[in-house]
């Protein structure tokens, strides 16, 4: 027959164990102390926070290299605006559940390293007060142009336009992406490299097929085949819609 107040005493034994444990046992005390600093140093706009190299306003220890917060635009190495990956195809603006992305397509095309000249977004705003960091835009983007950042200190005193991140604030380099999400960045780059290789292989196969077709045509009817095959190879000179069907087969991998 158990002692009269046994339940209560056992309960108190547990609290005593926790009381002592919280001094020594790392397992029990996992509350991290947040570095306190006065908030006069709070920037006026969310965009004024430090841009590059993932350096937070305050050295916090809570950000792991998996956590995601608001999205950011990626550009490969080199001058940001030349190597921006985004082509303003506005799929992410359409798919975004709370509809917080606003894109205005530029009218002129910009040369992209190793690729066709593409449009670029004249303005690319994300309303950080509305975005719920759900990563749908990263999934639907066919060009891996938008990925999730892990910076969470974006508080500003101005409620109306302070929380609107402009294109300049969103644009971050690929090394920064490697720095904050090493694993995910590595996978993404490997996937891009594979796709590029696959496309090259397909293009080579397509050229090879074209030469073979050309040779066969010459062999059969040498003179008129050459005449009309020359124009036919000129007019499908990459009209823009090929880029959309390009992204169609891109994403059915």
């Amino acid at each position, binding site marked *: *027959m158990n002692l009269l107040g046994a339940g209560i005493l056992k309960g108190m034994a547990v609290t005593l164990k926790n009381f002592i444990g919280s001094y020594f046992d790392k397992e029990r*005390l996992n*509350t991290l102390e947040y570095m306190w600093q006065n908030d006069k140093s709070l920037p006026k706009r969310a965009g004024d926070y430090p841009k590059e190299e993932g350096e937070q306003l305050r050295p916090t220890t809570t950000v792991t290299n998996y956590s995601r917060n608001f999205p950011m635009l990626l550009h490969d190495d080199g001058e940001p605006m030349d190597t921006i990956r985004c082509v303003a195809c506005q799929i992410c603006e359409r798919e975004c559940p709370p509809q917080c992305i606003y894109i205005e397509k530029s009218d002129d095309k910009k040369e992209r390293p190793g690729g066709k000249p593409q449009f670029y977004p004249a303005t690319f705003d994300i309303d950080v007060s509305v975005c719920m960091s759900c990563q749908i835009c990263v999934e639907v983007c066919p060009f891996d142009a938008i990925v999730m950042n892990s910076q969470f200190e974006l508080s500003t005193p101005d409620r109306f336009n302070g929380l609107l991140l402009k294109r300049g604030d969103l644009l971050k380099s690929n090394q920064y992406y490697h720095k904050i999400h090493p694993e995910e960045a590595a996978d993404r780059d490997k996937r891009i490299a594979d796709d590029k290789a696959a496309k090259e292989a397909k293009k080579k196969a397509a050229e090879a097929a074209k030469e073979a077709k050309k040779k066969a045509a010459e062999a059969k009817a040498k003179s008129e085949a050459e005449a009309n095959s020359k124009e036919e190879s000129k007019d499908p000179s990459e009209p823009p819609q090929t880029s959309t069907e390009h992204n169609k087969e891109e994403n059915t991998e």
Partner: protein
Amino acid sequence: MNWELIKDILLATVPLLVIFPTMFALTTWVERKALARIQNRIGPNKVGVPMSRYGGKLSLFGLGQPAADGIKMLFKENIVPTGADRLFHLLAPILSLIPAMLVLCFLPLNFPWLTDEQNSVKAFMLDGAVIFFFAITGLNTLAVFMAGWASRNKYSLLGGMRAIAQMVSYEIPLVLSAVVVVMTVGSLNAGEIAKSQDGWNWFVFSPWGLAAFIIFFIASLAETNRSPFDLPEAESEIIAGYFTEYSGFKFALFFLGEYIAMFAISGLAVTLFLGAGDGPGAEAYPSLKVIWFLAKICVLIGIMIWLRGTLPRLRVDQLMSFAWKFLMPLSILNIFITGFAWHAENNNEEYGFTIKAIIWTASLLILYLTAKGLDKVNRANIKPRTYQYGE
């Protein structure tokens, strides 16, 4: 006016007014730190000396917290609800503080710097000290009712009524368990009770003394609305009980009153059961008595904080039935046992060790069995249940 008398009185009472409020400030810090550590968090460590010149901050483990609370309470705007009747709204916290402070001066804290003559002044109520103690703590109930009634809102009225019912019904076990000690010592004044327990024969070491101490401690928890009995200020049901409508310094007064009452009652517990001021070095250096006394009070306060971190709250009717159907019969039985044991010891000659052992074990057994029986009667169907597992 003879200045001599006034000097004596001041010498006796001012140290009390200095020691106990500072201990109050420390206890709030200790309580928050200990509760935090029990719950595996760090507790207040942000308030400290702002060293703006060096940019950082000397946090000194949050010791600045009580000072910060005090200042905050001073500057908080004190709101009086329109419906409340202002006089009693103001009077209630004061009335809750007076008995707590008044009771402090009857504890047998023989300060080293006091000569015997001054000691007598302090313990003016030489004879009726213990009864005076219970009379004054009875006034605390009035203060709680006045607060509940004066703030004119349904939560505080409910809280006030609960508090009165609880305090009135827990005063009886409190008094009855004190009777045990008074009976064996034969006098009501605190000094003599302390003297009779010198040399380690504290009351808590005798079986009836231990039972009385446990009952006294449980009843004192209820008297000061602490941990398992903090029903009047149950946040989950009636927001903050009788001091819902209080803010600013009046709330701090209530807070101070509650803590000083806690010190006073644990002081009495120490005097009655734990041999006030008696400790290893007490005979050699009489000045050590005060330190031992305060140390024992801190131990009791520590247990109260530990209970607060662990136990949930009782319901009103369980609270009542626990007092009337469990504690009171037990303490009455305890009085009979003490009477019998004292009679056996003092009135017959061959009171050898064997009879003493028999009496002690017999009383221990009787007390434990009646406690088990009462508990079974009160909570007949409350026991852990078993569950089936379906596929």
